[in-house]
């Protein structure tokens, strides 16, 4: 529908250039940046970030509902709420959702929105691929969830061990939806990883050396590298399983002599880096939040960066700690046990750095800060139980019990989710222009904090007492009743806290405008208006320091104390209230000359092809062929379409010689802010180009 409305009469071409501009002849390119339709075709990293975030939060609600059902079932011994079959589907979908459809996309949301702003770029390196990643992720998630309506969801746990994943033990289509769905979202992650890595390396503003990048950017970068190398490993595993189930291959067919440990190895070679993919960006978020509210620079920035990189490396050498009880030999167990203990060291370095930042800081406990400190404390608990697992004999007692469930919820909820909420409260005013209410937010935090601990702390105890995970019921008289009931109560508290957050979001539209820099922030995203203009910055940012924006606002006096400068300049037009305390509007910038990549239909078209291929493989190959056509057609369309529509936005400055335009188009894809550094020739903005001094 969206497509036809903008249709122009079929142009009968004379065989020349116009064909080139409209590859399939029929549709004009979308050009508007407003209205709901623009969200389907947008290539703006900020809009894509918001889409990622909104989608992930919706999945968070769904995954949370599944958790509530699980807890309702377990509230009492011999629970009757769910049948064992449904129970299996619930914990499988809960885990899969939370990992692949909530935390990963949530961190993709932050990375997308923030990385270009923080490194002073106009967009990511490949804006259309960015849109593509989002749509692929969305359709992959919906594809996975459609299994509920098509015969039942996957039911073998989020790590889906062989041989239970075979057709013999799980005859429905559930697991097929799982393998195909995760392959689809894997494409999104891989493309996103390439895109964001190139962005971090190539799109930095002048002067933004690698060691001036904010810690969030660093942690996101490390996580993207982990994704880059981990996704292909699970892709292999998923393909093998898919071939087993759909085409009768023998990879996990024990009767034919297959070794089920092959799955475990492939899954956990991916799986352990994956847990760092889930936590590192959250670490990055609190590393931005804590300095902002301690009013101190981050303690030990280089240690923060290098411990993150170290975690990234070491995360590849510990995977078999998930397999201590699977019959790997004693030498391997000893080796992986040791390496697991060592990985706690760089993690500990981070904790000490945060504490060092808090130490003697002028602390303000905003909601963002509460969640950040919540991460530091709760993650530490989870990290410690992790070190307990690393002791192999200990682990044989704990594995597959609720103790492990307690561990990973302390790191994933107490770590990643708290970090995410910290970021949500911190950057909300930047993204939407107004703050979330602090009062309601504090209520949200405390209810969530209490609910979280009430849910998961008791699991340590029942776990050590031997309650197995992934079992639909437990008998009376095991001494587990009270703790399970407490857990269930806690889980409903968490649900309540989520509703409080939703209320906060809904109500927040009435909140007053927050201004460009409500927290007196340190990094470049606070130097532009809230929300930032499409092109992010009017003036091209340059970076002479770590915490560049702080240095533009403050200077040291004789005693080395920071004092506010008389005057400093925002990097784009901000609203009046932001101008108090020395802020100035940028002057003499003609923003109409900034070229940005134009919106495009093709990303969503290509992405749509993927689930069709998925359904096709399960039901009828015709559908797969159709999907394939969409994909190929979309790729051709995308390939032939210049990144910047030569016809867009030319009314303002017709000074081009037409032969030049395609080149400009390509440039804008290559160069984000580079477009402003004069290098873009006739289109460059007039911004200053000095590299290592602060802009005046």
């Amino acid at each position, binding site marked *: 529908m969206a497509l036809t409305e903008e249709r122009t009469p079929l142009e009968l071409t004379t065989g020349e250039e116009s064909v080139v501009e409209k590859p399939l002849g029929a549709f004009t390119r979308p050009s508007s940046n407003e209205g709901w339709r623009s969200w389907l075709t947008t290539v703006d990293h900020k809009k894509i970030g918001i889409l990622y975030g909104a989608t992930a939060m919706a999945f968070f609600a769904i995954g949370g509902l599944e958790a509530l059902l699980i807890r309702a079932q377990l509230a009492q011994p011999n629970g009757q709420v769910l049948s064992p079959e449904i129970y299996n589907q619930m914990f499988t979908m809960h885990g899969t959702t939370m990992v692949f459809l909530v935390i990963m996309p949530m961190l993709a949301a932050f990375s997308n929105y923030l990385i270009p702003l923080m490194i002073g770029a106009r967009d990511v390196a490949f804006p259309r691929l960015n849109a593509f990643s989002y749509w692929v992720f969305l359709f992959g998630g919906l594809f996975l969830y459609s299994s509920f309506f098509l015969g039942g969801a996957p039911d073998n746990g989020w790590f889906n061990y062989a041989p239970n994943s075979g057709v013999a033990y799980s005859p429905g289509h559930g697991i097929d939806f799982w393998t195909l769905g995760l392959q689809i979202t894997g494409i999104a992650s891989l493309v996103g990883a390439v895109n964001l890595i190139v962005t971090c390396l190539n799109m930095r503003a002048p002067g933004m*050396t690698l060691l001036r990048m904010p810690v969030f950017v660093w942690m996101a970068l490390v996580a993207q590298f982990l994704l880059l190398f981990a996704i292909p490993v699970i892709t292999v595993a998923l393909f093998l399983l898919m071939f087993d189930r759909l085409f009768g291959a023998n990879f996990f067919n024990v009767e034919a002599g297959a070794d089920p*440990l092959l799955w475990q190895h492939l899954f956990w070679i991916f799986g352990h880096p994956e847990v760092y993919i889930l936590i590192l960006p959250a670490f990055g978020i609190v590393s931005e939040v804590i300095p902002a509210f301690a009013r101190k620079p981050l303690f030990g920035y280089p240690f923060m960066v290098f411990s993150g990189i170290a975690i990234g490396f070491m995360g590849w050498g510990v995977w078999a700690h998930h397999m201590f009880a699977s019959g790997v030999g004693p030498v391997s167990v000893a080796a992986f046990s040791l390496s697991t203990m060592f990985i706690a060291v760089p993690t500990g370095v981070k904790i000490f750095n945060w504490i060092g930042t808090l130490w003697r800081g002028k602390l303000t406990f905003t909601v963002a800060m509460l969640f950040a400190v919540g991460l530091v404390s709760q993650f530490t608990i989870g990290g410690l139980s992790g070190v307990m697992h690393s002791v192999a004999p200990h682990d044989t007692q704990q594995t597959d019990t609720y103790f492990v469930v307690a561990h990973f919820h302390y790191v994933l909820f107490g770590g990643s989710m708290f970090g995410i909420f910290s970021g949500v409260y911190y950057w909300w005013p930047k993204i939407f222009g107004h703050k979330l209410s602090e009062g309601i937010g504090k209520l949200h935090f405390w209810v969530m904090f209490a609910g979280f601990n009430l849910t998961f702390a008791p699991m340590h105890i029942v776990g050590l007492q031997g309650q197995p995970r992934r079992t639909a019921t437990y008998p009376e008289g095991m001494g587990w009743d009270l703790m399970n009931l407490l857990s269930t109560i806690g889980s409903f508290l968490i649900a309540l806290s989520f509703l409080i957050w939703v209320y906060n979001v809904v109500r927040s539209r009435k909140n007053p405008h927050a201004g460009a820099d409500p927290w007196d922030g340190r990094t470049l995203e606070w130097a532009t208006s809230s929300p930032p203009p499409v092109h992010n910055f009017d003036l091209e940012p340059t970076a002479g320091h770590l915490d560049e924006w702080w240095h533009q606002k403050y200077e040291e006096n004789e005693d080395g104390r920071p004092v506010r400068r008389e005057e400093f300049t925002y990097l784009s037009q901000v609203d009046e209230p932001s101008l108090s305390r020395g802020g100035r509007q940028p002057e003499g910038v003609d923003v109409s000359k900034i070229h940005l990549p134009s919106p495009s239909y093709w990303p969503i078209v290509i992405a749509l092809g993927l689930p069709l291929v998925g359904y096709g493989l399960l039901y009828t190959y015709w559908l797969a062929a159709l999907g394939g056509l969409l994909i190929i057609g979309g790729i051709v369309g995308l390939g032939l379409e210049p990144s910047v529509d030569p016809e867009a936005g030319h009314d303002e400055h017709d000074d081009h010689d037409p032969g030049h335009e395609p080149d400009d188009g390509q440039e804008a894809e290559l160069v984000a802010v580079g477009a402003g550094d004069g290098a873009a020739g006739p289109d460059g903005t007039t911004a200053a180009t000095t590299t290592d001094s602060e802009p005046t």
Partner: protein
Amino acid sequence: MSDQTLTGEAQQEHEAQTEHEAQTEHEGRAHPSDRNYVGIALILAVLTALEVVSFYVEEQLGALLVPALMIMMIVKFAIVVMWFMHLRFDSNLFTRVFVSGLVLAITVYVGALMTFRFW
């Protein structure tokens, strides 16, 4: 990696100047000519022939067979990567990215296979 930042600007200029002869010089080292490429391909062909031959004289080589085959494989691999894929002449960053993937793959998979095999 940060050193790359500084060279960026300079390199652009350099590229702009040399323009069509850009192939002859890139970061100081001469690009191979077509003749070089053919020579390299000849070496690759000879190595492949040697590989096949050693497969047939397996008996005579004995324990040497596997190391010999492995070495020839690595040499061929390296030649293609360094010359045909230009890693010898291109930015270090490309090498680092690719080699990290390669080394990582070898480490984790050899590690996994070892846990099956020996211990």
